[in-house]
């Protein structure tokens, strides 16, 4: 009995030294992540906190902010213009996402093989991605210009329109020209994401499915699509959140027109904050948009989650 107690006593210093060693190791780990932590703190957590704080104030550009509690959020509830902007943003997000992921997947399928020309195609498809959104929008604004642009003249020459028509003057052609521009500019990015998924599918699966008698369409539906679910989920979340935050293209090409029909949520926040200088109210709008985005992303991740535990 006493021998056992003696052993237990002797073991105690060993345990405590092990514990202090572990504490030192934890500290070292914290030190390693400190720079990243600092960046997140300064560029994400602090601005987020400030935005929340601002949203609870009447915050003019000049003059003192005044605490008003949840008044901004109550006002927002009745702000028809904001909800209309949000509705338009959702409409745009729907078509932009379908266009971007559909085109991205088609390009990925086309450019996933091996061959000398394939590298050229990939580069060509990806090239527009590296252009800034503002530059691309300016280019498009010029192409669509009714007097000097290419599109009105081209449509006229092809006999699609009688005379030169200003395609940016009515909602549908204006909306679609911006959406097509976005697809042209960003599809290459989603092509790369989806291609990484396609290329990670072993050729054996396709061959086994060929022997199993699955047609090319059946192989795509039953083998390829389920196996690129993860990169597809990533592309979807990026695409939806990117589209919900659309601003540059509608600001530069359409300036929110025609008849303010293409004002997006971010555009409205920009107008509120930096045209009307209602910074507190703009902050409240931003918070609502953030909550909507988080909710959307969670729903998408849940829908595309991995149903099997192990693979």
């Amino acid at each position, binding site marked *: 009995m006493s021998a056992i107690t003696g052993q237990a006593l002797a073991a105690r210093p060993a345990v405590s030294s092990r514990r202090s060693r572990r504490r030192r190791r934890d500290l070292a780990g914290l030190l390693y992540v400190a720079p990243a932590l600092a960046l997140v703190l300064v560029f994400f957590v602090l601005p987020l906190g400030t935005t929340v704080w601002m949203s609870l104030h009447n915050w003019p550009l000049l003059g003192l902010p005044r605490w008003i509690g949840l008044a901004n959020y109550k006002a927002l509830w009745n702000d028809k213009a904001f909800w209309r902007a949000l509705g338009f943003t959702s409409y745009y997000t729907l078509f932009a996402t379908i266009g971007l992921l559909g085109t991205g997947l088609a390009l990925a399928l086309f450019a996933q093989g091996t061959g000398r020309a394939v590298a050229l195609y990939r580069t060509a498809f990806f090239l527009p991605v590296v252009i800034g959104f503002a530059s691309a929008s300016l280019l498009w604004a010029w192409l669509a210009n009714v007097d000097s642009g290419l599109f009105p003249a081209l449509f006229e020459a092809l006999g699609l329109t009688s005379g030169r028509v200003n395609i940016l003057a009515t909602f549908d052609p204006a909306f679609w020209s911006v959406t097509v521009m976005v697809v042209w500019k960003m599809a290459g990015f989603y092509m790369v994401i989806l291609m990484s998924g396609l290329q990670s599918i*072993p050729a054996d699966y396709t061959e*086994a499915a060929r022997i*199993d*008698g699955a047609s090319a369409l*059946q192989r795509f539906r039953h083998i390829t699509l389920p196996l690129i679910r993860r990169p597809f989920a990533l592309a979807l979340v990026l695409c939806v959140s990117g589209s919900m935050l659309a601003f540059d293209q509608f600001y530069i090409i359409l300036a929110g027109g025609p008849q303010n029909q293409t004002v997006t949520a971010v555009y409205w926040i920009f107008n509120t904050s930096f045209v009307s200088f209602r910074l507190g109210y703009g902050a409240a709008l931003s918070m609502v948009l953030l909550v909507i985005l988080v909710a959307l992303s969670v729903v998408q991740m849940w829908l595309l989650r991995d149903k099997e535990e192990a*693979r």
Partner: protein
Amino acid sequence: MSAPARHPAARAGGLELRGVSKSFGAVEVLKNIDLDIRPGEFVVFVGPSGCGKSTLLRTIAGLEEVSEGEIAIGGRDVTDVDPSRRGIAMVFQSYALYPHMTVAENMGFGLRMAGRPKAAVARDVGAAAEILHLQPLLDRKPGQLSGGQRQRVAIGRAIVRDPQVFLFDEPLSNLDAELRVEMRIEIAKLHRRLGNTMIYVTHDQTEAMTLADRIVVLRAGRVEQVGSPAALYDDPDNLFVAGFIGSPKMNVLDARLEGASLLVGDSRLPAPALGTRAGPGLDVKLGIRPEHLRPARENEPGLPFTVDFAEFLGGTTYLYGQCGPDLSLVVEAGRGPVPAAGTSLAIACDPSDMRVFDASGKRLR
């Protein structure tokens, strides 16, 4: 013990290859291959890496198109027929099980794609699962199975297709040694039970010897020899087959054929009876399997052998040593006292156990 009855619905088809060639760009991987495989036969393609054995199998499957030649399965020309309509099923080295489907879905995939009713799919999958004892695993995903179980599922998926010819592409190479032996026996039993034609690719000559009715030895896209394991072992057509089949390898010694005797180093041995008698002398290669070498009897002409190293394996002992400069030998000694390194003894071999090859490696008979 009587052999299990063959599967009543066995659909065994023979296979004919006529002048099959396959090139990838300028590289000719298969060169004018002719082959006849009888219905129900178990044929193993064996050869070193890059010999074209997998390409030959994929060509038969239709996953690669032939550059020239014809392929017939069950008497029907399938050279230009889609893989799914050739009456074949294939088991891949990686198993190629669809990771997002359950075992049952994997096995029934082909039938579902063909639009077969659910009940019929379930019945066929159930029957195949019973053969391979897979019933408890039917609802699992491949990721939840062990290597051996995945292998059985891959075989099960092939059985569901009810093929005339099963194609196996190195199916055991991803398994550990113990499981490989187990699965080898299981595949052999399956062949006896199903009775289908099976073609099996491997680089492991032990697998080839134990499984095959006939072995096809390939080298650099050509068929070197076709025959039963015993025929290839005892009666190789050339030095390549002699060296490839058998472990440890056949001993090959430089020798000179002079009339009825062979000159090896400074020793003169009686030559086996050969149809071609060499006159003044012919440089040849003498092949002797380790188990055919034994201590020379009194007054028997033999080779002086110095033991470098002895490998005791329990049942037998392999002696590694020299019988002259640049003349290495392996001798299989039975159970008994193991000679120490440096021991010298005279060893001999019956002329009937000697294989003689010409300088190009072709067998002299």
